[in-house]
C-alpha cells in the first residue's frame, strides 16, 4: 500500500457544504432522462451525503462521482470516475457519473488537452476515493468502537470480522460525511485494483445512441434567441462597415450589429487567439431564419495594418507579429523554401556535425512539407449565454474552462464569482475548443440583447475562421560512414508561423554529431493547438526520413531504430534526451511481434513508424494493398506504452481513433489559400476520411506496465502519418514528401 499525504490535492478534499449530521439533498436530474421501472423507483435513494468534492453517497449505497474534466470523446467521463471508484472500493454497477461543474476550488485541473486528463488527474482521483473510504471506515470504527485498521472494505461493504459486524456504505454515509478529512491516506497496491484495468462502457452511451441532448448546441431555454456571426472573407482583412438594411427586414430577425471580441489594449492570454476581432452578428428567432439573413447582410472590409502585440503565456510575455497583406499557399511554400536555405537558430548541437558531414561516405537528404489543417469538429463552434448586469451563465463545449472564465471576466468586467460556466459534452475538440472566443462572443451578444442567446457557427464560418494547424517544412540530412554507420544527423525545420522542432527527441542522443535548428515565418493566418501539436508533422518527417536512411544503409527499419535506441540506452550522446530508450524500444519490439513483421503476406506493402510524445510511446505497422492507384489499408497493428491502462476497451477505441484520424489527415487533409481566402469551406471541398478508406482492421496492444498512466488522446496520431507514407513507398517505389499524400480531388467516390 502507498501512503499519500492528502495535502497535495488538499483543496479538493475540503468539505464545502455544512453537512452537520443531516447531509444534503441533491438534484435528481440524472434520472430525468431515463425511463424507470417501478422497482427502480422504489430503490431511489432518500438522501445523498457529500463526502468530498468528487463524490456523494446515498443512503441506499449508490455513489455519484463527479467527472471533473471536459469530455470530448476520450472517454474520461467514464475513466476518471473509475479511478475514484476503485480506491473507494465500490461496485461500478452502483456508480452514477455526473459532469462536474467548473469549480477551481474543488478541482485542480479542469482542462482538456495535451493528453493530460488521466495523467494529471491520477493522484487526485485516487485520493478522492481513498479519503472517502477512510472517512467511511472512521465512521464505522466510531460507531462499532473498534480500531479502524481492523475494518475491511469490499464492493461498498464495511466489515469488522472479529465482531462479525458489517454495514453498507449507504448506512454509514451520513456519519462519514461528518468525519474529519484524513491527513494521510493509504492508496491501494496496483495488484489490488478491481475496476482500473477492466473495460467499462461509456457512461453516456445510452444517451448518445438514443439522441438525447448532450451537446452545447442542444441547449434551449425559454425566450432564447439564435445568433450567428459574419466575419471578413479573407485573412488580412477587417470589417469596415456593414449594410444591414436588407438583413434586418428578413423574417424572424431581431437585430444586426457588430461586436469586438477583445477590447483594444487588452493583453491576450495564451488561448485568447481571435482571427477577426470585430465580427458582424445577426440575431433572430431560429437558425434557418438567421442563416437566410446572413446571406442578405452586406459587409465592407479593408486591409489590416501590420501590428505587434504583447501577449501573455502563463506569466511569460511574448510579442506576436501580424503582417498585413493577403497571403496565398503558393507564396507560403516559396517563402518556406527560401527561408529554409537561408537562416535558422541552432537549438542543439552535439559533436562536430559540419566536419562529420564533410567526412561522411554518403549524405542522404530529404525535405518534407505539410499544409495548414482545419480541426473540423463535427459539432460546429457554439455556446449558450445568458448575461445580465449581475451574472453570466454560459453553457457549452470548451476545453479550457478555467482560463476562458478569466478571459470572460476581464471582457465583461464581471467578477469570476458571478460567472457560471457549465461544460457540455464536446462534439469533438482536438485543440480547437481551447480557443473559446465564441464563448465571449455569445456573452457579448446576450448582454446586448438582454436575453438568453445561443451562438452557432455555420460549418463555413467554423472552417474559415482560422486557428489552424500551422504549415511546416523540414529538411533532414544523415551522414553515414563506409561501414554504413550513422555518424551525423541534421534537422532544419520551421513553419508558418511556428516551428515544430523538438531538438531533444529521438534520434537526438543516438548520433555523435547532431545539429537541430529552426526558423519561423510570420503570418496573419491564426494557428492553434491541433491534436499532438507540432508532433503531428515532425513525427512524419522524422520517421519517413529514418525509413529512407535505414534502406540506404541496408537495414531493416525496425532493427535500425532498435540499434539507435540501444546506443541511447548504453551510451547516450548529450544529457537532455526527452525519451526513455527502453520504453521506446519496448513498443517497437511489441509491434514487431504482434504484426508478424518477419512473416509478411504476399501482395501486402508494409510501413513502420514509432514516436514518443505527450508522455506516451506508440509504434505502428501499417499493411496496405495498392489498387486502382489508391491504398486499401488492410490492417494497422499498434503498440502503445502509456503506463497503467485504466479502461482498456475505451483506450483501444481512442488509439484506433488517432490512427484513423491520422491516416485521413495524411492522405487528404489540407486547407489552402488564395489572396487570403480559404479554398475550402465545407466538406464538399475539404476532404475527410470515410469508412471505406479506414483500415479494415486495427489491432491495438498495450505494454503491460505499473507506471502511473500517461495520456492517449494524442500519441497514436503522429506516427501513423509516417507508417502510411512508408507503406505507400513500398507499394509504389515513390517516397512521399508533401502532405497530403493523395492529391486527387475526388470527394465522395
Amino acid at each position, binding site marked *: 500500500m502507498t501512503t499519500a499525504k492528502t495535502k497535495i490535492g488538499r483543496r479538493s478534499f475540503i468539505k464545502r457544504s455544512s453537512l452537520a449530521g443531516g447531509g444534503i439533498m441533491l438534484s435528481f436530474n440524472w434520472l430525468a432522462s431515463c425511463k424507470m421501472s417501478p422497482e427502480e423507483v422504489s430503490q431511489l435513494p432518500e438522501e445523498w451525503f457529500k463526502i468530498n468534492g468528487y463524490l456523494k453517497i446515498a443512503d441506499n449505497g449508490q455513489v455519484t462521482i463527479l467527472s471533473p474534466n471536459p469530455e470530448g470523446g476520450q472517454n474520461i467521463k467514464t475513466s476518471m470516475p473509475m479511478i475514484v471508484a476503485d480506491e473507494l472500493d465500490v461496485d461500478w454497477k452502483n456508480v452514477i457519473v455526473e459532469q462536474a461543474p467548473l469549480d477551481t476550488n474543488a478541482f485542480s485541473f479542469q482542462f482538456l488537452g495535451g493528453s493530460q486528463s488521466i495523467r494529471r488527474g491520477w493522484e487526485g482521483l485516487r485520493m478522492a476515493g481513498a479519503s472517502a473510504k477512510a472517512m467511511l471506515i472512521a465512521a464505522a470504527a466510531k460507531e462499532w468502537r473498534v480500531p479502524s485498521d481492523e475494518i475491511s472494505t469490499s464492493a461498498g461493504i464495511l466489515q469488522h470480522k472479529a465482531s462479525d459486524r458489517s454495514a453498507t456504505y449507504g448506512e454509514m454515509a451520513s456519519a462519514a460525511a461528518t468525519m474529519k478529512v484524513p491527513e494521510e491516506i493509504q492508496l491501494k497496491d496496483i495488484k489490488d485494483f478491481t475496476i482500473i484495468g477492466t473495460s467499462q462502457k461509456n457512461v453516456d452511451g445510452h444517451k448518445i445512441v*438514443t*439522441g438525447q441532448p448532450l451537446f452545447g*448546441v442542444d441547449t434551449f431555454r425559454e425566450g432564447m434567441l439564435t445568433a450567428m456571426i459574419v466575419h471578413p472573407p479573407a485573412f488580412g482583412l477587417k470589417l469596415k462597415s456593414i449594410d444591414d438594411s436588407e438583413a434586418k427586414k428578413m423574417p424572424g430577425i431581431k437585430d444586426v450589429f457588430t461586436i469586438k471580441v477583445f477590447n483594444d489594449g487588452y493583453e491576450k492570454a495564451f488561448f485568447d487567439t481571435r482571427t477577426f476581432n470585430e465580427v458582424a452578428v445577426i440575431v433572430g428567432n431560429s437558425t*434557418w431564419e438567421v442563416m437566410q439573413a446572413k446571406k442578405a447582410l452586406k459587409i465592407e472590409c479593408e486591409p489590416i495594418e501590420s501590428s505587434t502585440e504583447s501577449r501573455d503565456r502563463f506569466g511569460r510575455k511574448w510579442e506576436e507579429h501580424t503582417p498585413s497583406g493577403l497571403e496565398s499557399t503558393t507564396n507560403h511554400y516559396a517563402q518556406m523554401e527560401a527561408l529554409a536555405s537561408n537562416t535558422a537558430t541552432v537549438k542543439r548541437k552535439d559533436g562536430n556535425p559540419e566536419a562529420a558531414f564533410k567526412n561522411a561516405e554518403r549524405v542522404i537528404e530529404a525535405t518534407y512539407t505539410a499544409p495548414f489543417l482545419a480541426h473540423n469538429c463535427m459539432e460546429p463552434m457554439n455556446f449558450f449565454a445568458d448575461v445580465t448586469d449581475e451574472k453570466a451563465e454560459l453553457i457549452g463545449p470548451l476545453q479550457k474552462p478555467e482560463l476562458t472564465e478569466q478571459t470572460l471576466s476581464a471582457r465583461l468586467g464581471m467578477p469570476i464569482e458571478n460567472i457560471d460556466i457549465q461544460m457540455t459534452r464536446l462534439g469533438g475538440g482536438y485543440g480547437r475548443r481551447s480557443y473559446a472566443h465564441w464563448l465571449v462572443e455569445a456573452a457579448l451578444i446576450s448582454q446586448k440583447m438582454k436575453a438568453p442567446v445561443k451562438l452557432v457557427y455555420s460549418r463555413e464560418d467554423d472552417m474559415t475562421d482560422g486557428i489552424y494547424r500551422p504549415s511546416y517544412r523540414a529538411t533532414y540530412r544523415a551522414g553515414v560512414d563506409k561501414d554504413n554507420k550513422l555518424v551525423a544527423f541534421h534537422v532544419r525545420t520551421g513553419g508558418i508561423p511556428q516551428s515544430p522542432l523538438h531538438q531533444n527527441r529521438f534520434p537526438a542522443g543516438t548520433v555523435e554529431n547532431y545539429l537541430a535548428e529552426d526558423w519561423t515565418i510570420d503570418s496573419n493566418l491564426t494557428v492553434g493547438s491541433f491534436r499532438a501539436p507540432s508532433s503531428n508533422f515532425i513525427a512524419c518527417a522524422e520517421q519517413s526520413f529514418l525509413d529512407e536512411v535505414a534502406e540506404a544503409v541496408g537495414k531493416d527499419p525496425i532493427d535500425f531504430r532498435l540499434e539507435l535506441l540501444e546506443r541511447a540506452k548504453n551510451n547516450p550522446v548529450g544529457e537532455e534526451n526527452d525519451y526513455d530508450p527502453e520504453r521506446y524500444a519496448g513498443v517497437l519490439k511489441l509491434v514487431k511481434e504482434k504484426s508478424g513483421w518477419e512473416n509478411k503476406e504476399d501482395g501486402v506493402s508494409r510501413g513502420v513508424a514509432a514516436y514518443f510524445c505527450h508522455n506516451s510511446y506508440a509504434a505502428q505497422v501499417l499493411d496496405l494493398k495498392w489498387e486502382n492507384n489508391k491504398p486499401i489499408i488492410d490492417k494497422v497493428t499498434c503498440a502503445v506504452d502509456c503506463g497503467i491502462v485504466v479502461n482498456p476497451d475505451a483506450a483501444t477505441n481512442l488509439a484506433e481513433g488517432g*490512427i*484513423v484520424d491520422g491516416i485521413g489527415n495524411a492522405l487528404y487533409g489540407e486547407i489552402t489559400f488564395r489572396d487570403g481566402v480559404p479554398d475550402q469551406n465545407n*466538406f464538399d471541398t475539404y476532404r475527410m476520411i470515410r*469508412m471505406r478508406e479506414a483500415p479494415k482492421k486495427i489491432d491495438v496492444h498495450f505494454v503491460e506496465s505499473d507506471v502511473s498512466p500517461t495520456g492517449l488522446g494524442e500519441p497514436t496520431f503522429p506516427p501513423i502519418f509516417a507508417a502510411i507514407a512508408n507503406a505507400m513507398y513500398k507499394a509504389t517505389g515513390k517516397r512521399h514528401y508533401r502532405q497530403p499524400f493523395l492529391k486527387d480531388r475526388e470527394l465522395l467516390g
Partner: protein
Amino acid sequence: MSKFSLKINGNTQVVDVDDNTPMLWVLRDHLKLVGTKYGCGIAQCGACTVHLGDNAVRSCQIPVSSVGDQEITTIEGLSENGEHPVQQAWLEVDVPQCGYCQAGQIMSASALLKRNPSPSDAEIEAAMNGNICRCGTYTRIKKAIKTAATATENA
C-alpha cells in the same frame, strides 16, 4: 409562413414555418428533437440523417414543404428506449467517442439493415460513405452493423 402537419415518430406535429425550412431545423429548433445533428448543411457529412419512409435521407436537404404525409423517423423515434438492434449493437461494441455523428450513423445503418439484413463489407462501406466520423470510429461502426445484422438474423 405556412402550417405543416407532419408525421414524426408516430405522432402528428404541426409547425408554422417558412416553406423552404429544411426538416433539420424544423426538428431541432421547432420540435426540440435535437438528436438529429447539424454538421455541414450541404448533405456531405450525414450528421442530420433521418428516415423518410424507409429511406435514410439528409434532413438538411429536405424542405418541410416537400414532406407531405410521408412518415419521418428520427433517432428519438427509432425505438422506445434504445432497444433497436442497431442501438444495442452500438452499445455492445461501445462505438462512440465524441458521439456527435453517431445518431446519423445509426439512422444510416438501420435503414441499410432494413433493406439488406446481411450486408457485405463493401455494401456497408457504400451505404455508410455519406456519414463522416471525425473521431475515426469507422472500424467499430462496421463491427456494430455486423453485430446488429447477426442479432436480427438470430431473432
